[in-house]
């Protein structure tokens, strides 16, 4: 393993979702923001399980982008 602990080649995961009309969760039914409604604390909790933290972030109308550190 590299001195700085870096392994170059990344693991990449892509998950794609669709509006599930079976749920009667009217608050977010078909909200165009979709996954972007997930609060940062919840995302951060998932990243902690993956052993990553957010070091930088930017967003525009289409999506949110986070730079992570292991």
């Amino acid at each position, binding site marked *: 393993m590299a001195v700085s602990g*870096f392994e170059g*080649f990344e693991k990449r995961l892509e998950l794609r979702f669709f509006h599930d009309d079976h749920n009667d969760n009217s608050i977010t039914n078909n909200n165009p923001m979709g996954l*972007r409604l997930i609060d940062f604390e919840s995302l951060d909790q998932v990243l902690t399980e993956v052993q990553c933290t957010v070091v930088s972030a930017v967003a525009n109308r289409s999506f949110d982008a986070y730079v992570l550190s292991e």
Partner: protein
Amino acid sequence: SSLFVYPTKIIIKTCGTTQLLKSIRPLINLARDVNLALRACRYSRGSFIFPDSQPFPYTSFEDEVSVVEESLPKSLRHRKASVMTPCNNNNNSRAWHVFTASADVDSDESLVVVEVCMTELDRVSARSFFRRDDEERNSDSAGREMTRLSGIDGINANAFICDFAFDPCGYSMNGVDGDRYSTIHVTPEDGFSYASFECGLSLHDGGRGDIAEVLTRSIDVFRPGCVSIATTYNGEGYDHEVTKRVERVLSKKLGLKCRSRLMDEFPGSGTVVYQSFTPRR
């Protein structure tokens, strides 16, 4: 490492020895809270430089696929795992690993995704990604300096760049341009230097979508000794002319010869083309 959150899509890409696959179940649960159900999953990776340093299940692709499959709902019934190994490479050191699962055979994704992995970076180019001793600046301004010094800001002039410099070396950036993302990660240390470039783009949108030009500019930043390019066509039908154009342009502009080209079909992701290049002798 990077995370991208679209209204109906999440992309998370991590290097090092992270436990990426542990994120699948929690992300599915969080999506359910906002009334979204999983439709498709794609897991991909190159071949680790330090495979023995990876924790279980990342020591074997079969184990990784088992962990992914256990995390997915049964509704994603179309599934496929494949290790694409260049014929001129008897061991797996340059193989591309892909697992996809989908509720539908066809892809709902319009963007073509290009994943570039580069090793044996040019030493002068790699030097841009080391922090200077006299540098008091924080990682943001050091990151901006690396972006400018290396020429990364010239890959897509339309993109807003969010960059970060690691200590004592290393760099990550995310590019944001409309609904198009791009990302670069760099490990510059000599002996195991590595850089990746990834972007989502369309084949037909006036110049921004010219994969060959975007690839030329991104690879030229690092002048690597070895390049692999995995292009996932998703809902965009495969276009053999694009594959040949990439090979022609990389040969002409960067002197990189295509040493292998593999293709495979995956449910929910369409055609994946995996090309490897090395400098013409």
